[in-house]
């Protein structure tokens, strides 16, 4: 639902074809974990099929110090992978 809401807010959802929508998979994850917070089966499937990874999630808060970015961003929060 979060993905649908986010795409709708940007007018990107309404004309996305069924086949394209079926390719979107959102997995709650945690980059700080060696397995990115995914269960073993999911991690193994992603790692065997992945061809490209785009890391584009970051906290946009200009008042934070460098230390604050360790866990949230550099250690990571979201995974956007293209198969």
């Amino acid at each position: 639902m979060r993905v649908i809401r986010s795409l709708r807010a940007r007018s990107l959802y309404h004309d996305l074809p069924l086949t394209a929508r079926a390719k979107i998979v959102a997995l709650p994850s945690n980059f700080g974990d060696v397995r990115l917070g995914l269960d073993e089966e999911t991690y193994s499937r992603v790692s065997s099929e992945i061809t490209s990874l785009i890391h584009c999630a970051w906290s946009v808060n200009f008042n934070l110090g460098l230390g604050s970015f360790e866990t949230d961003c550099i250690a990571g929060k979201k995974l956007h992978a293209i198969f």
Partner: protein
Amino acid sequence: MAFRILTTALLGAHNLINLCLKAKRPAPANFNFCSSVSAVAATKGGFVPEELPAELSYSQGMGYARSKLVTEHICMLAAKKTGISARVLRVGQVIGDTVHGIWNENEAIPLMLQAATTIGAIPALDENPLWLPVDTVAHGITDISLSNAGGGVMNIVNHQSFHWTRDLLPALHATGLEFEEVGQKEWVDRLRNSNPNPVVNPPIKLLEFFASKYDNNNTKRPGLTYDTRKARSFSPNLADAPILNNDLVSKFIQHWKSTSWTANPAGKAHVATRQPHLVVLAGPCGSGKSTLAQGLAEKFHVPWIEGDNLHSPASLTKMTNGEALSDTDRWAWLSKIKDAAFVQLKMETFKSNAQDVVIVTCSALKAEYRADLRKIVEQGVVVTFFTLQTGLATLKTRMAERVGHYMKVEMLEGQVEILEGPGVKETDIIPVDVGRERVLVQREVDALFEDVTGRSAKSWQVQV
């Protein structure tokens, strides 16, 4: 301290890069890190090459910029040590998209432009921005990610600039926006002395930020020059990046005017005015319109009009005989549906506590049929379409299970043939994959129905 931060940072990037290295293909997956020009914004000499900055001090002082620069270094180190195609994509100022002009109104630049409506002035800056529309950036990043580029740094900024005062301000005037062009210092003064209520005067929220940048006589801002040759060579979309023009500017202004820039002189918190709402469940026969409509009607206590019941007797006879309807039959039918919906909405407004929403099931297969139903907007009604989508095979199976329906399976093929998917401008459509389990579909539609109508199943139950 610095070392601790670096090791923690390295750990996170390490986990992601490891994932790419584990790819069971001839080569590891490529890794594309979206960095920011703030990581190099203090570059000495005015020229930013497509490589790591010579000095760590070239980043802006804030944590955001420094964290990006640290990660840029991690990526390049990984590329060197493992041979992985790790790319640093250094993105500059991103603006609204070229199709709908959607740009977050709370960002610094949109707030500066909104000052035209709240304090009647925009500063006349001597700047040459390198803005890129968000869809161009997205296409650029995808182009590069899917390309055979090796590891390295690329600058994702526009290779053509425009002038703030000579190009942007005239484009804003051309949209009909009325404002004065004032010096930067005067602009900050005007903002400082304007209405302190951020609800009425949103630009006041960033007063401190604007003052730090513009409350001075430093008007000459030459800006940095970015090398973008590598990025453009791997991305056709970046090579063809559009330059700011009147059309794009008017899309942004239209977007803000129709969403956030609405007049709110009383300064009260935004109260959603209840506009009557027509929700159309559309899709070919067998897509499950009626089942979903019934589910919604019961859960949200909303009236539901079965479009199929409004066919003329002549049309019904045609369909029973397996004959397709003509467009004339359909226009008459759509007109009946609109009338029925409008009458129902009128009745709803008379009921106390009733939030006037009505559901209509109607195939609405072609864009022109939807356009016709959408005309009800002129009567102050908001319209949302749920288009129920699935493959022909699924529809056929469902049709075959039905008993006593006038529609013949063969006619379904005709329906699917004329079916037109949502057009780029039809943003009032929410597509739904109905090939999944019914419970999942109903749950998704329930949640989206709640989003668009603001009607909640829970509050209704409390009222009972």
